[in-house]
């Protein structure tokens, strides 16, 4: 029997502003029931907009659907109210922090059931059945904000399971999950699809982890125009040309990426971590008025630590990548290197001029020598103008140059990452991917010798990630910077990093680099 059509849309045309170019331009798509489809496309091609439109969240929350119709199982979407729609389609968003309105998963599940008008008497039992099915019983009564990214996404899935929506639309749900959690999610996706008969439509710009799970890949171009469709690996292989042209990553693309070799020698200089112990509960280095001076207990136990007796060398003038599961202390290590958290053991900066202990350098001194790009880029903009973000660092670095010269330098830097057309924009108006690139550029501009990059390519398509990393690489070679980056993207790390550490059993295990 031919499967029914779950989602179908005809000649969709959608714009955010009445006069502007349509984001979706004449999109026609059919998703068969009980299948897993992955929509892929470069940043800004309209794939997220398409997802929101198919869910009915747009144009309800903004924008104009000027042409076209959407049907869910043959019923027009337009005629459904949110409560009825929830029976057909539910969505999972990219940022796991922003998907809940209640304090705990149990309350959130109750909230979902209230929405679809389930009597109060049945709620407790139903919530427990859903939690059992998705193995989230242990999360039910924990505050949602204390869960990890992976756990939060599981919690969202529990809500969706409970709502019993026939279709699930996922908008880059795995962008900030570690590979283990992604693998875990894939198992759930398969289960929901094969055993529960759900239709899954996922939006992603990485295909790697979907191989073996997805039934169909759809490649989107500008205006969400369908460029190609693939049903298996062979088909995918054939589409490589289009992938490349659109700047989207296909499986194994990083292995094929060639970059300039790092000719800088491995010297004896760099950051030496010796018997480093990092407590789970952060102990701030800040001095507070009236507050008792905090100390890490000298006999800190392994179970209270993130890193325990870890040794490592982050060599000078090289890129070091740190891989590892979420919550293993990668970001905390960055904060420690930035002199924000106290530690036990030693972190020594060894340079030509001699060796210094990080804790002795002082906060101001650290900021003069270390630059950082955070995970959430919109938190680190200090001006209202894209160019000014970059000139701020440049003018401190080249105090003798005139304003025009600085501006020229800034625009040249923006140009390398495709941000030149936005030079007069406010940084807050850029897309997530663009913001991230700008954040890294602004750190590069300031000219500190050590750069800490926290997930620099998260949410980027292949072309943007490459442009950004090429720029970082060039600065490492030319200006002899030392870069330490934290990432979940192994392919990227293997391509660009000279040294790779993997956090395992509270230690930093060397994978490639110094001495190997």
């Amino acid at each position, binding site marked *: 029997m031919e499967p029914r059509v779950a989602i179908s849309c005809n000649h969709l045309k959608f714009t955010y502003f009445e006069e502007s170019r349509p984001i979706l331009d004449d999109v026609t798509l059919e998703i068969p029931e009980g299948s897993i489809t992955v929509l892929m496309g470069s940043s800004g091609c309209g794939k997220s907009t398409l997802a*929101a439109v198919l*869910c009915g*969240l747009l144009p*309800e*929350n903004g924008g104009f659907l000027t042409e076209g119709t959407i049907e869910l199982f043959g019923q027009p979407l337009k005629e459904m*109210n*949110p*409560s009825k*729609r*929830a*029976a057909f*389609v*539910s*969505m999972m*968003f990219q*940022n796991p*922090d*922003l*998907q*809940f*309105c*209640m*304090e705990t998963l149990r*309350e959130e599940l109750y*909230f*979902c*059931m*209230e*929405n*679809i*008008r*389930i*009597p*109060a008497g049945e*709620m407790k039992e139903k919530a427990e059945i859903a939690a059992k099915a998705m193995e989230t019983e242990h999360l039910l009564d924990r*505050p*949602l*904000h204390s869960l990890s990214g992976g756990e939060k996404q599981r919690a969202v899935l529990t809500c969706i399971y409970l*709502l019993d929506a026939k279709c699930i639309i996922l908008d880059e749900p795995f962008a900030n999950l570690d590979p283990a959690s992604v693998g875990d999610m894939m198992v759930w996706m398969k289960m929901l699809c094969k055993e529960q008969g759900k239709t899954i439509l996922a939006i992603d710009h990485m295909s790697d982890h979907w191989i073996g799970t997805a039934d169909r890949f759809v490649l989107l171009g500008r205006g969400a125009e369908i460029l190609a469709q693939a049903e298996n690996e062979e088909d995918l292989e054939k589409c490589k040309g289009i992938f490349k042209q659109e700047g989207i990553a296909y499986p194994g693309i990083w292995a094929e990426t060639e970059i300039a070799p790092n000719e800088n020698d491995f010297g004896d200089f760099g950051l030496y971590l010796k018997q480093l112990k990092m407590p789970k509960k952060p102990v701030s280095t800040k001095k507070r008025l009236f507050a008792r001076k905090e100390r890490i207990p000298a006999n800190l136990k392994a179970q209270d630590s993130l890193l325990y007796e870890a040794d490592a060398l982050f060599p000078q003038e090289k890129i070091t990548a740190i891989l590892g599961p979420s919550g293993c202390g990668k970001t905390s290590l960055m904060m420690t290197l*930035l002199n*924000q958290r106290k530690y036990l053991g030693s972190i020594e900066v060894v340079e030509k001029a001699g060796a210094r202990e990080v804790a002795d350098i002082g*906060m101001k001194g650290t*900021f*003069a020598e*270390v*630059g*950082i790009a*955070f995970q*959430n880029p*919109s*938190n*680190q*903009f*200090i001006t*209202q103008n894209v160019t000014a973000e970059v000139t*701020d*660092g440049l003018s*401190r670095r080249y105090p003798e140059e005139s304003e025009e010269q600085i501006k020229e330098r800034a625009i040249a830097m923006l140009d390398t990452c495709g941000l030149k057309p936005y030079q007069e924009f406010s940084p*807050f108006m850029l897309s997530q991917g663009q913001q991230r690139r700008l954040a890294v550029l*602004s750190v590069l501009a300031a000219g500190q010798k050590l750069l800490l990059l926290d997930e620099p390519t998260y949410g980027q398509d292949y072309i943007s990630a490459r442009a950004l990393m090429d720029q970082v690489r060039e600065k490492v070679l030319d200006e002899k910077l030392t870069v330490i980056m934290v990432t979940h993207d192994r392919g990227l790390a293997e391509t660009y990093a000279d040294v790779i550490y993997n956090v395992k059993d509270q230690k930093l295990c060397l994978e490639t680099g110094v001495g190997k």
Partner: protein
Amino acid sequence: MRLSTLDRINPFVKSIVILVCCIMMAITQSWQVNVAVFLVWFAAMLVFSKCKIKSLILTLVPVVFLALIVFVSGLFAGNAGVDSDSLYTVGNLESALVLGTRILSYVIFGLLFAFTTDSKEFIMSLMHQAKVKPKFAYGVLAAVNLVPTLQREWAEVNLAYQARRKSTGIIPFGPMFNTLVNGIRWSENVAMAMESKGFDGEGERTYSIETRVGAKDYIYAIVSVVIMAVIIVVFH
């Protein structure tokens, strides 16, 4: 965990009763009334709620301090004209006492509400008793639950300013702007997530907790107002 008597009063009723008591108090001008109100409600909190005397006193320390400041400034600065017919002709001491003690009595009402009310239950009762729309009520709940995220982001924004060697000034307008912009984006995100879970805002829905107004709430309201009236009659 057993709830205390005051914990079980409907939050909306509780807030209305407090409002009525405050208005009644506002029309009197007697420090004796203020002190009596303070003592009676302080005692009521100790007896009928689970809050501990230690935490209550600790919370009151800054309030007493504030009351003292008002009292002292009223005493010296409240320069009442001898010939005028204004309320303060009774003398500086009297008016300063009224002002100072009034702060105490208002605060004790506020504490009673804060110490014995669950914020979620209060919002639920606004929806059920005051007929506030679910859209608004759940919006407030969502905002309240975003606070931990907001705190984390705020710390990060401030660190970013430091890391980029930019002073934030005494009033950190820069970080405020960042957080505000983020906040708007988040609220959109959360609203979409809620809608995708079937939240309608205006349509019909069921409720996991339904707050009701019962006999105990009426008794509470009447007893409170009567005590208030007695205090006013006796001391005024």
